[in-house]
């Protein structure tokens, strides 16, 4: 187990190193002098030279790379071109809103998704199954940003139940939750549908196995068979798809945060991209990449915790 853990940790470290290197190279490959971006139309050669020196872009590339790595280790991600505050502080200020949204969205995706999937699998072939799977297919086909707009229209404009925009007052939990519900629904709908479909097919696969026939032959009721024998064996693919869905939630939150004007990491990233604010893009991608890698890592571990067979492999 310890060896497996070490192996996985090593893989995470390599992935992260590759990630920051790719980001470093990509940002420098994009055409355009960052000094010009900062200075705009009033740039003089002297100003450009001094800004370049400030940014360190006059140094050779390997030097810049080492500085970049050193900065990363000390939490220094550079300055945002637009706001002049550090990229790290901007990212830190926006992270809580994204974590809230991802957590709420994850709950709203996993709980109904797994329940619907178990139900559809329990009654597979019936009208209920068809109904659930039809609804899931519909839910999968609705783009999150459009669903967000519709929800805003229905429940903020027509029926003024929820606030229109923003992330809520950080010191007031009730306000945070009121701001969270609509975007969480928008971002979770598609993921819930996918989880329900995966759960259903996992349940069906387990139902086809010999030990279920044995359990039924023993005279166990179908619901008990479902609870005691099916769920435990069907949960594995659900765990792995849940990790993927958590990552999908993170990326889906980018667009939904823009729709709901939530001050999260996603909207920060999109605004940085449209404004070509390279240090900020760099910081956002690194934070996204770090969280994606860590989620994958956690899913790997939980996978081997749930299934003894994986541990051996």
């Amino acid at each position: 187990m310890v060896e497996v853990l070490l192996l996985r940790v090593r893989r995470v470290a390599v992935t992260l190193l590759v990630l920051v290197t790719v980001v470093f190279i990509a940002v420098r490959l994009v055409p355009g002098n960052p000094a010009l971006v900062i200075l705009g139309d009033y740039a003089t050669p002297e100003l450009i030279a001094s800004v370049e020196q400030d940014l360190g872009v006059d140094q050779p590339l390997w030097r810049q790379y080492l500085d970049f790595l050193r900065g990363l280790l000390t939490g220094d991600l550079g300055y945002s071109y637009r706001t002049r505050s550090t990229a790290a502080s901007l990212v830190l200020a926006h992270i809580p809103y994204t974590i809230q949204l991802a957590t709420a969205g994850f709950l709203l995706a996993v709980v109904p998704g797994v329940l619907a999937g178990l139900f559809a699998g329990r009654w597979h072939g019936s009208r209920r199954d068809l109904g659930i799977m039809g609804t899931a297919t519909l839910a999968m086909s609705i783009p999150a940003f459009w669903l967000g707009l519709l929800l805003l229209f229905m429940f903020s404009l027509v029926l003024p139940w929820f606030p229109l925009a923003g992330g809520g007052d950080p010191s007031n939990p009730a306000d945070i939750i009121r701001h969270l519900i609509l975007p969480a629904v928008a971002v979770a709908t598609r993921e819930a549908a996918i989880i329900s479909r995966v759960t259903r097919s996992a349940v069906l696969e387990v139902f086809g196995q010999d030990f279920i026939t044995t359990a039924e032959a023993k005279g166990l009721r179908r619901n008990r068979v479902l609870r005691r024998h099916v769920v435990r064996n069907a949960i594995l693919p659900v765990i792995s798809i849940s990790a993927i869905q958590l990552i999908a939630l993170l990326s889906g939150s980018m667009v939904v945060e823009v729709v709901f004007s939530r001050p999260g990491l996603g909207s920060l990233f999109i605004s940085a991209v449209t404004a070509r604010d390279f240090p900020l893009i760099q910081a956002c991608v690194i934070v996204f990449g770090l969280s994606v890698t860590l989620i994958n890592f956690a899913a790997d571990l939980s996978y081997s915790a749930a299934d003894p067979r994986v541990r051996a492999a």
Partner: protein
Amino acid sequence: MGAETVVKHVIDDPNIVSDMEPRRGQIHRVLHNPLVLAGLFCHLAIAVLVAMAWVRGLDPFAQNLRATMAPPSIEFWAGTDHLGRDVYARMAAGARYSIGVATATILISGAVGTLIGLMTGMFRGRLIRLVNAALDFIMAFPALMIGVLAAAALGNNLTSMVSAIGIALVPRFALVVRSETLSIANRPYIEAARLLGAGNSRLLARHVLPNVAGTVIVLSSLYLPLVIALEASLSFLGLGVPPDVPTWGRIIADGQELFVLAPWVSIGPGVMIVLASLAFNLLGTVSATCSIPAFDAEDRAMVSDRQSGYALGVDVGGTFTDVCLVAADGRFWITKSPTTPKDRSEGFLAGVRDVLDAAGVGFSDIERVMHGTTVATNAILEGDGARCALITTSGFRYVLELGRHDVPRGENIFAWTKPRRPVPPELVFEVPGRLSSDGSELQPLDVSECEDIIKDLRSSKVEAVAVCLLHAYANPEHEREVAEFIEESLPGIAISVSHEVLPVFREYERTMATVLNAYVRPGVSSYLLALESNLKELGLLVPVMYMQSGGGVISGEVAGVRPFKWRSRVPRRVSSELLR
């Protein structure tokens, strides 16, 4: 006889779909799946909406500043935006861009991904390991994030949109194709092709690619809605498309700013996105279920063996009659009913009727009937066959009694006794006449001798006659003459001749086979006659096929003449013992 039948096990699950190509029966089934119908309806709806905009000659770019932000009306079906542009016209035009971009992306990234997958699956080396690592790396990150970054870096035009989504999609194709290729590369036919001198490129093109093509097509249909969603999200964010191109996502983004005043600008194109993704999601689901192996290999072989309709399999044993009905889609029903020894076709028909009732199918729906039975075997084992006589060449009366000069392996040589022969020596008659082993006549056949034999046959009340003359396998002339003579004198009696039953050399084996054939034939023919006439009466349209003991099937006519071939599944030891 009222046979009590138990429907033992019924599998009737519409979700079980076999992984065959949809054939006649399957297409029918697929078209009756409500999800498929809904998917086709979505396709139709998009086509109609686009066609109507074209018929009405609507211009998605024409501005009408006198009718800005007009709500939906007869003139503007989906309202107008802040520049007075017809939203319906823009939705219809958006179909061209959004579906076009999605299709192009799928085609290009599918082709590139397949190529990379084939290469990484087939070859080894440092470069391949690097490519694999890169694929895994890209896969670790969500497609939307990669798309946003790539689109931002590549700029705002449709080519960059296609490449941005393509970068995220290529590894998704490549990794699946790679694992398929890896498993195919180890199969014997690849090894065989390699031994025949096929180079790598030929192997990939002629042997691997055709086998992964199906998977790539299914993947494409699954990823198409994903690409539509990605494209919509990116254009909604203002990335990857020029501002004047009305993709659905871009129109929604335009509408977002007017959302309080003119929500219809965003609603129409959103409906189009939902319709398009739904159309491909619904059909993609079906194509994916079709390819998921729901059966184990044995069931699949059984299913793919038939074309369509229902196949009926019947096994009449000594105690039970088992009937199995298999539908084209793989559903099957099994029943077990008691065998009715007096007239076995009764038990047969009772079982068949039950299984058809359970399936709700009529006799005329059956496309194939296969029948195996132990009727002949049981008659032999139980010594319950017809009373029969044997006519053989002068001097060969005791061939049967002598048998082969050994004791079956595994038997106690002191305790073993020869089984009773189906024909006692008193009922073996000799006729003069002799053939050589090459078939030439050494001594002509004397048919007049048969006159006396006929008298004896009559007085001993035999039901069947076997004719087995020396070297008849080389020249059947003498046997035929004898058979004709008996036929004329004793019309209606069942005659078995060795050159038809088992035309091989070795007198004992050929004689035994012919005698056994004569022994079981009356019982079998009457059974077959009753069975076939009953089945025809009940509306069965196809002939029954009978399993041969050596494998393969024969028609009822042949089975009636040579039931020896039909000692179905005689345990080997029993049959070898009988042949001793």
